[in-house]
């Protein structure tokens, strides 16, 4: 197989899932953040994954039709557009005139589920890397 492309492809997924996990960590850390430098509460972050076609020189000699496989990348980290959660806490320093405090729309359960998804995907792609390595070693073994 194409040595240089294969490992990169799985590597792209490892990187993307890791970034996703980092965003979850950031959300979890800021679940109570009512005040940010930009003003207003922390806004929940999400990653947007996008397939990324890897250009590959085709093996004209072998006569095999090669289509480009796709790697993955984080196209963007965006803020959740849902309105912040309002809780009635008139004594809070960040309360608005009506006595409501705006909290980030971060749900720990939702975040944990996302994190589990990222971890599972990371493990899957790690085993893809192992499989690739195995096949590379097998190929080298052809020469005795």
């Amino acid at each position: 197989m194409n040595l240089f492309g294969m490992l990169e492809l799985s590597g792209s997924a490892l990187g993307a899932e890791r970034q996703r996990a980092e965003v979850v960590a950031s959300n979890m850390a800021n679940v109570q953040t009512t005040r940010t430098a930009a003003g207003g509460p922390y806004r929940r972050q999400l990653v947007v994954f996008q397939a990324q076609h890897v250009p590959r020189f085709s093996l004209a000699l072998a006569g095999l039709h090669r289509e480009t496989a796709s790697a993955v990348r984080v196209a963007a980290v965006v803020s959740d557009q849902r309105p912040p959660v309002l809780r009635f806490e008139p004594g809070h320093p960040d309360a608005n005139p009506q006595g409501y405090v705006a909290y980030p729309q971060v749900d720990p359960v939702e975040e944990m589920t996302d994190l589990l998804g990222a971890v599972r995907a990371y493990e899957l792609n790690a085993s893809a890397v192992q499989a690739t390595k195995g096949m590379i070693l097998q190929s080298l073994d052809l020469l005795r």
Partner: protein
Amino acid sequence: MSMIDTPLMRGLERVLDLSAFRHQVIAANLANIDTPGYRTRDVRPFAGEIEQAMAGDEPSLTEQSFTPVAHEIRGLLERPDGNNVSVERESLLLAQNQLRFQVAVQFLKAEFHKLSSAINGGSAS
């Protein structure tokens, strides 16, 4: 090319080429398991392989008529974001495919050794 060629060798080389190509496609599916709208792809000679194997026919991998093409698979469960990659399916195929590659390599090695013995008259390696 050269005199160093037998039908068995050609067949085994083909299995290797197909398996290597399929490995790339499976790895791409796994990499995009969370990509919205991504559709699972597979390689034509293998598609429906699991169903075929259960029905008792083995796909004929050594035929020259197949040009391996990656194409979308139908009949998979789709999630709300349009992604239809199945963890179970890809994990199973990853392992199975790797095994097939390994087996083909071993048989090919044996074929090379056989030829080497024949050429060298059974003496020296």
